[in-house]
C-alpha cells in the first residue's frame, strides 16, 4: 500500500472517522489493528520479523526492569545485614545482568537486521578476496527477504531497550501497547525514528476531534505530495538517466543531474515525512520533525543536524555519547592530550566517534561500498573540520572576516551545498567506481556551451518540465526562507480570511494533478530501508 495510493488515503480517512467515533479508550487498539493491516498489505511473510522485534524487545524491557527491581529488593531486604561491599557487589551483579539482557536483545535484533541486509554483501566481498588470492571456490549467496521498514523499526525499538536499560523510563507492561509503538503505520516505512517517552503517551492518551489537527494534517500531506510529485518525480527523470548511463554524460550535464538529485532526494524524503507527519497529526499524534531546512546549513555537521534529524539524534544518543564516554576512549583522550596537546587531544576522540558514526550512517543506507564511501566522506569532512577548527578561526581573524556577517554566512551555505552535492556522487552512483568516473567526467567535459546548446533539455525533461521544476523550487525556497526566519506559515495562514485559505488549499490540491509528473509511479525513496 503505497503512500500515494488511493487505498492509503481511504484507509486514513476511514480510520480517522472511526477513531473519533469510538470510545476514546479504544483508539489505540484501532491504530494497532490498522497498523498491522497496513503492514500485512505488503505481505504476510514480513509480519514475523516485526513480531519478533516487538516480542523480544518487550520481554527484554520487562526482564531488565525486573532484574533491576529484584536487585533493589534484595538490598533493601538485607539492608541491615549486608556490608557496603556486599551491596556494591549486588549492584554490580544486577548491572551485569541488565547489561547481559540488553546486549542479548540488541544482538538478536541488530543480528537479524545485519544478516538480512548485509549477509550477501559480506559474501560478495569474501568471494572477491578469494578471487584476489587465487582461490576458485565461492561462497553461495542466499535469497533473503528484507522486511519493509526493518531499519526504522529496529532502530526505534533498540532505542527503547537502551533507554529502559539506562533507567530513563519504566518498561511498557502492555505488549499490545508496545506493539503499537513499534508498528504505528504512518511512520513504519520511512520513519521518523521515534522515542518511546515522546510517542507512547501520545498513542495511549485519549484524542478528541479537533478540526485544527485535521486541517494541519491535510495541509502537510498536500505539501508533501506537492514536493514528491511536482519536484522529486520530475527531477528523478534526469537523475536516473544520467546516473544509470553515467559514461555518456560529462561536465554540466553531470552537475545538473547531481543538483537535481539534491532536489529529488530532499523533496522525496521530506515530502514523504510531511505525508507521514500529516497522517499522524490527523490522529492527534505529533511525530518528531526529520528536516530543518538542511540546505541552509553552514557546515556539514550543521547539515546532519538538519537532515534526517531523528537518525542523527539516534546515532548521537546511542553511539556517539556511549562511545566517546567509554573507558577506552577516556584513556585514548588522556593519551592524545599528552601526545598532541590539549586542543587536538580533546578533539581526537570526537573525530574517531564521528568516523564511527558516519561509517554506521553509510552502511545504514545500504549494503554497498558506495554507501560506506558516502558515510566516510561525510565523517572525514566533519572530523577534519573539528581538527582544523583552531586554524580556521585563526585564518578568519587574520583575514578580518566576521564569521557572523551575512556574506560569510552565504558563502558557508554555498560551500556546504557544494560539499553535500559531491557526496551525492557516492550516494546515487551505480557503484563506487561509477561515482569516481562521474567525478572525473564532471571536469573532463566541462564546457560552457552545454548551458546554451540545449543539451540540458535532452536529459529526459521538456522545457516546460524544467520551468515547472524551477518554479516549484522557488516556491519551496521562499517558504524555507520564511521558516528560517521563524515565521510559522501554517499559523499565519490560519489567520487569513476563509476565502484566501480555501483558495490556497484548493490550489495545493489541484497542483499535483496539474503540475505533478505523470509517469511510472515510484514510491518514496526512503520507504525501502
Amino acid at each position, binding site marked *: 500500500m503505497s503512500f500515494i495510493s488511493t487505498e492509503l488515503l481511504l484507509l486514513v480517512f476511514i480510520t480517522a472517522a472511526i477513531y473519533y467515533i469510538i470510545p476514546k479508550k479504544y483508539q489505540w487498539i484501532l491504530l494497532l489493528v490498522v497498523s498491522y493491516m497496513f503492514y500485512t498489505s505488503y505481505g504476510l511473510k514480513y509480519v514475523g520479523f516485526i513480531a519478533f522485534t516487538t516480542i523480544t524487545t518487550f520481554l527484554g524491557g520487562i526482564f531488565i526492569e525486573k532484574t533491576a527491581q529484584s536487585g533493589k529488593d534484595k538490598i533493601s531486604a538485607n539492608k541491615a545485614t549486608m556490608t557496603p561491599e556486599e551491596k556494591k557487589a549486588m549492584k554490580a551483579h544486577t548491572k551485569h545482568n541488565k547489561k547481559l539482557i540488553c546486549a542479548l536483545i540488541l544482538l538478536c535484533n541488530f543480528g537479524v537486521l545485519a544478516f538480512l541486509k548485509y549477509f550477501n554483501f559480506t559474501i560478495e566481498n569474501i568471494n572477491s578476496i578469494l578471487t584476489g588470492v587465487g582461490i576458485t571456490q565461492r561462497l553461495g549467496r542466499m535469497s533473503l527477504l528484507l522486511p519493509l521498514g526493518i531499519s526504522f523499526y529496529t532502530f526505534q525499538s533498540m532505542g527503547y531497550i537502551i533507554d529502559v536499560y539506562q533507567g530513563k523510563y519504566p518498561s511498557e507492561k502492555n505488549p499490545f501497547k508496545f506493539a503499537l509503538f513499534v508498528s504505528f503505520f504512518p511512520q513504519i516505512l520511512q520513519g521518523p525514528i521515534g522515542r518511546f517517552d515522546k510517542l507512547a503517551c501520545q498513542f495511549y492518551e485519549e484524542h478528541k*476531534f479537533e*478540526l485544527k489537527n485535521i486541517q494541519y494534517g491535510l495541509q502537510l500531506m498536500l505539501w508533501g505530495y506537492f514536493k514528491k510529485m511536482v519536484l522529486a518525480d520530475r527531477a528523478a527523470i534526469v537523475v536516473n538517466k544520467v546516473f544509470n548511463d553515467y559514461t555518456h554524460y560529462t561536465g554540466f550535464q553531470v552537475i545538473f543531474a547531481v543538483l537535481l538529485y539534491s532536489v529529488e532526494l530532499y523533496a522525496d524524503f521530506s515530502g514523504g515525512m510531511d505525508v507521514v507527519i500529516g497522517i499522524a497529526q490527523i490522529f492527534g499524534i505529533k511525530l518528531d520533525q526529520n528536516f530543518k531546512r538542511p540546505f541552509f546549513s553552514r557546515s556539514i555537521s550543521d547539515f546532519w543536524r538538519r537532515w534526517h534529524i531523528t537518525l542523527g539524534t539516534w546515532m548521537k544518543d546511542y553511539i556517539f555519547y556511549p562511545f566517546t564516554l567509554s573507558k577506552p576512549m577516556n584513556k585514548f583522550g588522556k593519551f592524545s592530550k599528552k601526545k598532541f596537546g590539549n586542543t587536538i587531544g580533546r578533539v581526537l576522540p570526537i573525530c574517531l566517534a564521528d568516523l564511527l558514526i558516519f561509517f554506521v550512517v553509510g552502511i545504514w543506507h545500504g549494503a554497498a561500498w558506495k554507501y560506506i564511501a558516502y558515510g566516510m566522506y561525510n565523517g572525514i569532512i566533519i572530523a577534519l573540520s573539528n581538527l582544523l577548527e583552531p586554524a580556521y578561526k585563526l585564518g578568519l581573524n587574520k583575514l578580518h572576516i566576521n564569521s557572523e556577517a551575512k556574506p560569510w554566512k552565504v558563502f558557508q551555505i554555498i560551500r556546504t551545498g557544494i560539499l553535500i552535492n559531491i557526496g551525492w556522487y557516492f550516494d546515487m552512483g551505480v557503484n563506487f567506481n561509477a561515482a569516481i568516473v562521474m567525478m572525473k567526467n564532471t571536469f573532463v567535459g566541462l564546457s560552457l556551451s552545454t548551458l546554451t546548446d540545449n543539451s540540458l533539455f535532452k536529459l529526459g525533461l521538456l522545457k516546460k518540465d524544467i520551468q515547472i521544476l524551477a518554479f516549484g523550487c522557488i516556491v519551496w525556497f521562499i517558504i524555507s526562507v520564511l521558516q528560517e526566519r521563524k515565521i510559522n506559515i501554517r499559523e499565519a495562514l490560519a489567520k487569513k480570511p476563509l476565502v484566501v485559505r480555501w483558495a490556497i488549499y484548493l490550489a495545493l490540491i489541484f497542483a*499535483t494533478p*496539474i503540475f505533478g509528473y*505523470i509517469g*511510472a509511479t515510484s514510491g518514496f525513496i526512503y520507504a525501502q530501508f
Partner: protein
Amino acid sequence: MRKHKGILLVSVFLVVFIIINSILNFMLIPSCLTRVILHELVASNDYKCVVLGTSHGEYGIDADIVSSETGRKTMNLCIGGEYLQDSYYLLKKVFQTNHPDTIVFDMDYDYLFNIPRSAISGSSIYNLYPFSLDKLFYFKDKALGMEYRAALFPWMDYRENFSNAKNIIKTKLSSDYINFNPDTVNMVDNNEYEGHGHIYRERTNRTEKVDLVKFDEAGIDQASVEYFRKIVKLCNANNTKIIMITTPVSVEQINASSDEFNKAFTYLSKLASDNHIPYYNFNLVKDSVFSRKLQDYNIGHLYGDAAASYSTVLGKFLNDVEDGQVTVSDYFYDSITDLKNK
C-alpha cells in the same frame, strides 16, 4: 455549536472541491469512443456474440462482418487499454443488458504483463462505467491500488487540453454528443469508427517496423490471470460459451521473435486448457485462409481492408465452431515452424 460549524465548513469545502473537479472533468475530458461503445452495448439487448479484448481486436474485428457471416448480432467490446479486469466488468455489463450465447475473448498476451501502475491508467472504461454496486467493486479492484490522482482526478490524463476546453465544452453541449454520435469523437485522420466497436484504419505510407518481443512467464501478473478465471466463471454462470482467440500479428513479427512467441502460445494454450475453454490462435492461421503481411499493419494494428478479410475468416470460423463442424487443421498450422515453412 462550534463542532457543528466545523463539520459544516468541511462539508462546504468538499462540495466546492467536487464542483471544481466536476467542471474540470467536463471541460478537459474530450468525447471518446468508449462512451459511444458502452452506449451501443446498453442500448441494445439482442447481441448474441460479444468480443472482448484490446486495441488489436478493436482495429482487427469488424463486428458487422462477423454478424453477417454468423447470422448472429455481434458486438465488439475490444477497447484500447482494456485490461483483463476491465474486460471482466464489461462482461458483467454485457450479461446485465444482453443474453449472448458466445463470448469471444481476444487475448493479447502483452496485457498480462504491463499492468497500469502509473497515473495514466487508460481507465476510460472505468471512468465511464455506470454507477452501480459493480462500479464499487470495480473501484476496489482498479482504482484503489492506483495513485490517488488517477482515482480522484480523471481529467488529469487530459490536462494538456486547457487550451482546447472551449471546443470540448461546445461539443459536450451539442445534441450530437448527447445522442452518442461518434462524429463528436476526435479521431486520428486515417481512423474511422464503423460502429459496434470497430475502428477502420485507412492505409497510409507509413513503414511498419518489426519489434522484438519478449515473453517472461515469471513476469505475468497473477491478478490478471485471476481475472481471466473470473471471466470464464462468469460465462459459465450465465450458461454462455466462451472461446479464446488471438488476433494475428504479422508473420514477419512472429518470425523475428519466434522463440518468444512460441513460449507465449504454449502458455496461452495451457491457460485455456486449464480453464477448460478452447483456444484458437489466429497467429497460426494458414496463409491460404488469411494472408497477411507486415504492410497490412500500422503500429501493430490491422488496416481496415485487412481487418475486413480477417473478420470474414473469423466469422466463418465462429460459424463452423457454432455448428460443431470446425476442422482446426483447415484453418491453422500446427506450429510456428509450419508457419515459417509455409
